[in-house]
């Protein structure tokens, strides 16, 4: 408030000082550089009685004091504000804060504030733990967490095992979730397409193929996809331009893709069959021993 009053006083003095420029040149200057005020006023206001001159001198002195006081207070106030800003978080009215919230992205606000940045870090770490745990539990331990979506071979193998266990829906859910995290990964799109083809689900096959077309219209695998598409959904416009080879429809299909990465090596299958028969014999022995009331040792 004070510095506003002193500024008003200055404005009032301006016309007076301006008109006195010539008069100042004619008056004596003191050794200290000052101006003798009374002779100056007598020259400026020759018609004025002595009482008016005295009053004008008093007003001028008071104005000068006000100006000096105002300038001093203003400087002190600014200095105090600067100190306050450097030590205390700035407080603004709620409406202004809201405006700032709208204008400034929240991540930048968080980034600027160490406490909020730490809290945001905790929240994000907690969310990551839940996401990872969800993936681990939902997909029966096949994946460790979200990071495994960056390993297409691992994810596609887990999906293939679901498919082989007659859990095609869970396989599709896994691949769909993988695509949410890695939408550019062609291997996931192709594995989804092959599983839908093997399940004979033409509607889903077309839907996934259309989505893949939007993502990768120039993918090298489109010939294969159309070959499958013509067989499973011949009426779909997406595959309309692809000529169906009659040979594709009969007998074994040598160019059938293997996007779900089935193994061509049958060693594991042979061992699995041997193990199954071995165990079957053991179970039979156990049952016979039970029938004779003999205690079977742990096999």
């Amino acid at each position: 408030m004070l510095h506003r009053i002193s500024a008003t006083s200055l404005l009032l003095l301006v016309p007076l000082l301006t008109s006195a420029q010539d008069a100042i040149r004619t008056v004596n200057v003191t050794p200290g550089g000052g101006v003798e005020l009374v002779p100056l006023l007598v020259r400026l206001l020759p018609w004025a009685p002595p009482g008016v001159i005295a009053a004008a001198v008093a007003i001028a002195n008071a104005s000068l004091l006000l100006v000096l006081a105002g300038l001093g207070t203003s400087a002190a106030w600014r200095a105090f504000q600067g100190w306050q800003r450097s030590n205390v978080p700035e407080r603004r009215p709620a409406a202004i804060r809201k405006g700032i919230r709208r204008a400034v992205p929240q991540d930048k606000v968080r980034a600027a504030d160490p406490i909020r940045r730490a809290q945001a870090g905790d929240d994000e770490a907690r969310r990551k733990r839940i996401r990872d745990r969800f993936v681990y539990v939902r997909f029966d331990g096949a994946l460790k967490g979200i990071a495994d979506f960056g390993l297409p071979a691992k994810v596609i193998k887990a999906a293939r095992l679901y498919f082989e266990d007659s859990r095609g829906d869970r396989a599709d859910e896994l691949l769909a979730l993988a695509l949410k995290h890695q939408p550019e990964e062609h291997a996931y799109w192709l594995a989804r397409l092959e599983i839908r083809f093997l399940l004979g689900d033409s509607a889903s096959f077309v839907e996934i193929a259309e989505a893949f077309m939007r993502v990768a219209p120039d993918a090298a695998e489109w010939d294969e996809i159309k070959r499958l598409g013509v067989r499973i959904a011949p009426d779909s416009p997406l595959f309309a331009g692809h000529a169906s080879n009659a040979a594709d429809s009969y007998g074994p299909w040598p160019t059938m893709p293997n996007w779900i990465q089935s193994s061509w090596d049958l060693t594991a299958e042979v061992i699995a069959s041997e193990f199954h028969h071995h165990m079957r014999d053991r179970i039979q022995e156990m049952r016979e021993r039970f029938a004779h009331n003999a205690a079977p040792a742990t096999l």
Partner: protein
Amino acid sequence: MSEELGREELRTRLGALRAALARRDIAAAGAVFEALDHDLHDFVSDDQQALLTKMLAWDDDDFALASRVHALHSRMLEAARMLVSYSGLDKRLDYIAAAIAYWAEAAKWELISMSHEPPQRFTQLHELYLEAVALEGAAHGRRMMANGSWAKVAIEPLYVRALVLRRLSGGHLGPRQLEILDSWLLAWVDAMALSPDDPAPAPRLLVQPDSSAGLSLNVDPDLGDPLFLPLGPLKAELDLVFDFLQRGELFPGRGPSTTFRLEDHVSLLDILHREFTQAGAAPMTRDARTNAEGVEVDVYLGLGDIIRGGFSPPAAPGQSEAPTNLFEPVTTARRQRRFRLRDHNDSGLGLLAPRDEAAALHPGDLIGVRTDPSAPCLVCEVVRKVHPADDSDTLLGTRVVSRNALPLSLKREDAAAASAPDIDVLYVPGTDSSGRADSLLVSDAVFQSAGVLTKHDAAQTFRLSLNRGRHRGRGWVLAGLEFLAEGQEPAKGSGKNPKPPDEGLTLSLLD
């Protein structure tokens, strides 16, 4: 307020409510009821939360506490029903809403506490709803604590919440899953609207409010017009739960249920998905069950007990097994448990278990049942648990996991584990002879840390790894196998199953 002071205060207020109702001082009773209704959450929430987050089996004190919670909600329900009868029109809808809300709470805690009280009657619930409809107040809101904050919920969604809770709590859900389900339903109030129009063939359930039953699939032609609950909107809400989990949040984002284990949330997803997508279809057929007339059978609880006892000749009743070595006589001696076989078919057994034995059993537990003394036990999973209204035994519905399991001892191939003890598992043959569908029943801990396992036999050594979980229960996994040739390394990520990303998640979420 200390715990004891809180209980004393609660007793005082309930006494005042009972006294005011006894002398038909409706104004005073209404005032006490409303204050108690407002503060009840503060009185019971800590006890409820302590019970539901307890990971160990409940002891007698826990059951007593759960019974007190159930009794409290039952008393509030009765008080609200009396106030509905005696109060003026201006307050009646408030009390109807309160009564329906307490009906649902009482029904939920009746199941959780294994209450000996008669079950909540649907006729009470239907009468309250019909009275609200008659007063054109089905949309009347009740201010209540829902998922940790105050919210206004209309009478119709409260009615539907009670019906859905009761339908889905037919013994298939554990205490925590019931609480999670309730929290989800309270977050889905906008999706729970009844309609006189049948949305079939879209999935739906129906209720006939003049009946003594809850939600069902089919109309009883002898009763009045049904009201339909379309399940499509609820399915859409369920999809949001998936979105929450994929973002790393537990739905609904706040409230006590978000402190429960993530496994409880995830297992509920499948149950609700089946309910919301198939309920409108024809009911699943089940093979006829043969009545077994309560013949006694030996029962083994848990994988370890099954392996130790289920494949040895049965001990005489009351006789303990001899300890396997002198250093652990206490831990290995087991008590013979005998349940009664109620009925059975190819896919499952119905068992009647003494209440104290059944207290620690929940859906998802593994049990062995020896129905024939001259044969090894059947391996079963508990899928349903129902407490009869009278004081008789608890009914356990079980699904047969395998009739031909075989105990095996496997070794870890890992050189560091050479001196480690053998791993005891159950071999579960698949339905075809190729061996592709064979599995091993192992504990969670073994599944996570198995690595490459070997089975040495006289003529051959089999190397194998556990490459996926085909089915999971409480603490056990039915794991698929991958066989390895000599010298072959397991495919990346399949030899040793990953450690769960955060087994301590529950604790950290409680912080």
